[in-house]
């Protein structure tokens, strides 16, 4: 059996496994180590891959039927009694159908329920707008005690799921659907909850991204270096709450320009969290949020939707150029400030 903590194992190949599949395997290993680990789902054992854990531990997976409010209430009760429940359903149902159960039964009681929500963002593309979820980061961030993590790929999902065991309270881990391309080469890059990963150095502008946008941001930075001669810093802000303030402050100080990119509404998500830090810093900083504007997302294949909403490398590069083109100066004049 592989080590659960430590820095030397890369047993999951995110080229051949979805984020969710990797989650199922990691959870099974956690279950082998720690008898307090249990699983709860709502008729989505197969779809969220918590069923992998259930195959290994049939007596420790509770499938409550299609009843998400019940799901999170049950998880709270299990946690209150000393167990560590991992609760999985689609992100739309975890964050919206059961929002109050998550808030009051889990967060207010500060119980160690780990919510692994899959099919977030527009990963469910063709299923339609009811199945898209572009609000969950905002909702979950607003609940006291909740830690919110958005892994960049399957490897980071493995790290996040393992790390969630060391967090005494509730955790929300937001996972996509399918074969999102891999970002990390291995698990040994020093993942720490609350500590952003500075993936690429740069001095002209910082892109702060999370989830599938991290890889695209890295591609955009390469592209901008080659075609525009720009030096772009890329930060993987995998933990949205608590946000890594130091990393944001460093970006303000050292690059004076920030673009956030996320597969989420521009209201209240990563961009909102970064904006809070910028505003509270009192420092001037050219800033833009790239994500889904205040409108419902359209139907289509996820890849098409990513480019439709300009979340691909080209779209990100254009957004960077727009900020670079802004007349931003470090002077005292308000007339020409952004």
């Amino acid at each position, binding site marked *: 059996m592989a080590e659960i903590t430590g820095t030397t194992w890369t047993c999951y190949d995110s080229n051949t496994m979805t984020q969710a599949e990797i989650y199922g395997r990691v959870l099974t290993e956690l279950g082998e180590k720690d008898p307090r680990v249990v699983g709860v789902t709502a008729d989505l054992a197969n779809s969220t891959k918590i*069923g992998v854990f259930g195959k290994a531990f049939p007596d420790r997976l509770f499938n409550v039927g*299609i*009843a998400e409010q019940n799901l999170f209430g049950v998880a709270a009760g299990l946690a209150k009694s000393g167990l560590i429940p991992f609760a999985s359903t689609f992100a739309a149902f975890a964050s919206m159908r059961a929002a109050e159960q998550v808030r009051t039964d889990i967060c207010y009681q500060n119980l160690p329920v780990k919510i692994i929500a899959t099919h977030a963002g527009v990963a469910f593309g063709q*299923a339609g*707008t009811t*199945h898209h979820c572009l609000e969950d980061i905002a909702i979950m961030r607003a609940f006291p005690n909740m830690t919110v993590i958005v892994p960049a790929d399957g490897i980071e999902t493995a790290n996040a799921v393992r790390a969630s065991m060391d967090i005494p309270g509730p955790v929300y881990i937001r996972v996509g659907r399918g074969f999102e391309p891999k970002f990390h080469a291995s698990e040994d890059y020093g993942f720490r909850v609350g500590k952003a990963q500075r993936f690429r150095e740069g001095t002209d502008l910082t892109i702060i991204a999370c989830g599938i946008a991290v890889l695209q941001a890295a591609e955009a930075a390469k592209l901008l270096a080659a075609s525009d001669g720009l030096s772009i810093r890329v930060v993987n802000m995998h933990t949205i709450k608590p946000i890594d303030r130091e990393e944001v402050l460093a970006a303000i100080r050292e690059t004076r320009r920030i673009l956030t990119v996320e597969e989420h509404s521009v209201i209240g998500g990563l961009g909102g969290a970064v904006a809070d830090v910028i505003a509270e810093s009192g420092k001037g900083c050219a800033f833009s949020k790239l994500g889904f504007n205040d409108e419902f997302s359209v139907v289509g294949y996820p890849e098409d939707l990513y480019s439709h909403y300009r979340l691909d490398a080209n779209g990100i590069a254009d957004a960077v150029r727009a900020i670079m083109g802004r007349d931003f100066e470090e002077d005292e004049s308000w007339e020409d400030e952004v």
Partner: protein
Amino acid sequence: MEAERLKRLEAAARQVRYDIVEAIGNIGIGHFGGALSIVEVLTVLYFSQMNASPANAKDPGRDKLVLSKGHAGPALYAVLAQKGYFPRETLFTLNQGGTSLPSHCDRNLTPGIDMTTGSLGQGLSVAIGMALADRMDGRKNRIFAIIGDGESDEGQVWEAAMAASQYGLSNLIAFTDYNKMNIDGLTSEIMNLDDLGAKWRAFNWNVLRTDGHDLEAIDRAIDAARLESDRPTMIILDTIKGKGCSIAEGKLSSHNMAISKEQKEKALGELSAAMGELS
């Protein structure tokens, strides 16, 4: 039912089934199981019972349907196309970028769809609101709703069950597609519904039960439901998930099933042979 009318319904149902398999088959994956199990009830509703057609699509007095198990959208799309709400070719844009037919029902996108659904458990409540409004305005129409057996796990379904009888909504006729399957397994194993009829009766609904693939029986049940004067009616339909398509019928895997080109051709061959027999 006269033989001629039954024959027409049978032909319509077979066409619907064919169109579902072709439309989902074209994209290679989709909710075959839950779409194929409601072909008969949708056929009876739109071709025998409901006062609903493109001509009265904007008339508030028309009959309306909330397909609460919205993942069965492709079945309703096939019916709506046959009714002339949109051209049959539109069926083959299912799920594609820019389509008016996403895999779950969307009232904002599709002509003839009365309510957006897909998040299970929500539809019956909306149907109640519609039924209340129609009754307030003295309209004589009916509101129909279809829920899944797995969907019946949702607490909101039972909140709605209580409300509909509290308000004595005899203009509301609901169906449970009792195909005995969820996604993860048999309904009886995931969350046993036990005596489903007794549950609805306990909520003071008029409860009927019939073979969900028997067009005449469904038609009779709806006729009977119309006679009810002070309670909502729940018609429990005993159905088979994936009905009428050999690769899907009765299979748990039919819920959201991938289908190869060869499988599609084979299934369509079977269905068109059946259509030939009929005519």
